[in-house]
């Protein structure tokens, strides 16, 4: 912006001075704004979980059946990968605030690599599923042909691909943001004094993690192990 911000003072009737919150470079404002943005994500995934729960209650057996087909090992590895990436992200921010720019950059790189690892594992998983004929648009997930799975399973897998897909999309965006952040750090635009961008991207990454904290058990764990029988009976 062409205009340089000059802090301003408002004077009341008693001549007391009051600092005016500037409309630029407002750290707390930036943080608040970003939190609000994240709330919209919460509502968005919340609505998807609502859809999921709706159909879970209509087709419990199908859901557990379908869930048990997912690969808990790969999904679980990914959970741990994300967990660690949240740590590296947090440490990166800590280092940034502590003035250790190089360390911060290292941590961001580490996060990026973990994120790529996550995507790689996801890709393996999806490929496996594709080879088993379970994928959006394939016969098994279309009703009315001889390969069709039952409704409940179609819905489960449909939501599974939609939600993990959207989550993966968020990871990709996150990687993009981190690369951009590195560029800004190199350009000196993000620094220990001025790190709102880093702060918000770290928040974003935690949100991505947070969503996975629910996505993972909802899809992978509900039908894992011996529960299938147990819950079907309970219903």
């Amino acid at each position: 912006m062409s205009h340089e911000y000059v802090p301003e003072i408002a004077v009341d009737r008693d001549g007391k001075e009051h600092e005016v919150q500037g409309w630029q470079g407002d750290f707390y404002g930036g943080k608040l704004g970003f939190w609000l943005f994240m709330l919209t994500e919460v509502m968005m995934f919340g609505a998807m979980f609502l859809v999921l729960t709706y159909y879970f209650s209509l087709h419990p057996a199908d859901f557990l059946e379908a869930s048990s087909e997912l690969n808990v090992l790969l999904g679980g590895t990914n959970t741990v990968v994300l967990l660690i990436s949240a740590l590296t992200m947090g440490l990166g921010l800590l280092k940034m605030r502590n003035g250790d720019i190089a360390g911060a950059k290292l941590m961001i790189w580490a996060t990026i690599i973990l994120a790529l690892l996550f995507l790689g594992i996801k890709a393996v998983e999806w490929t496996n599923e594709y080879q088993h004929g379970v994928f959006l648009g394939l016969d098994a997930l279309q009703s009315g042909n001889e390969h069709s799975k039952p409704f409940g399973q179609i819905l489960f897998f449909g939501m599974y691909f939609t939600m993990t897909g959207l989550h993966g999309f968020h990871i990709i965006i996150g990687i993009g943001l981190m690369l951009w952040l590195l560029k800004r750090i190199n350009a000196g635009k993000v620094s220990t004094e001025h790190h709102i961008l880093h702060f918000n991207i770290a928040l974003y990454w935690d949100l991505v993690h947070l969503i996975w904290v629910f996505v993972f058990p909802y899809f992978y764990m509900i039908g894992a192990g011996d529960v299938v029988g147990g819950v079907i009976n309970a219903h």
Partner: protein
Amino acid sequence: MLTNYKTLKAGYYKVLIGLLVLTTITFVQPYMFMLDSTFGIQMLIGAVKAWIILMYYMHLKGEKLIGWTVIFAVALVVVFFAIVVVDVEHFQYKDASHITSQELDVTHTTSHEK
């Protein structure tokens, strides 16, 4: 510079360990205990993890305004769930309805005396 860099860093590791422990429980529970209520337990663990992440990684502790906005949003989602669940629970003529029972014929029939 942060004066308490060390303690903050140690804090991050502590949180990580906590989360790892919870994650482990997530993994083993369906194979080991309380098999009748896997879904509930899993979601409960998820909620605890989420709470930890929010409080410590996302620094919500001590944030009054932002904390309230988050609570408001989450409460709203919960209310949406609650009302829709009431509707589903009372879903009328469930047994006769096609979408709730996959045994019924999928194809179009003109004689629908079901």
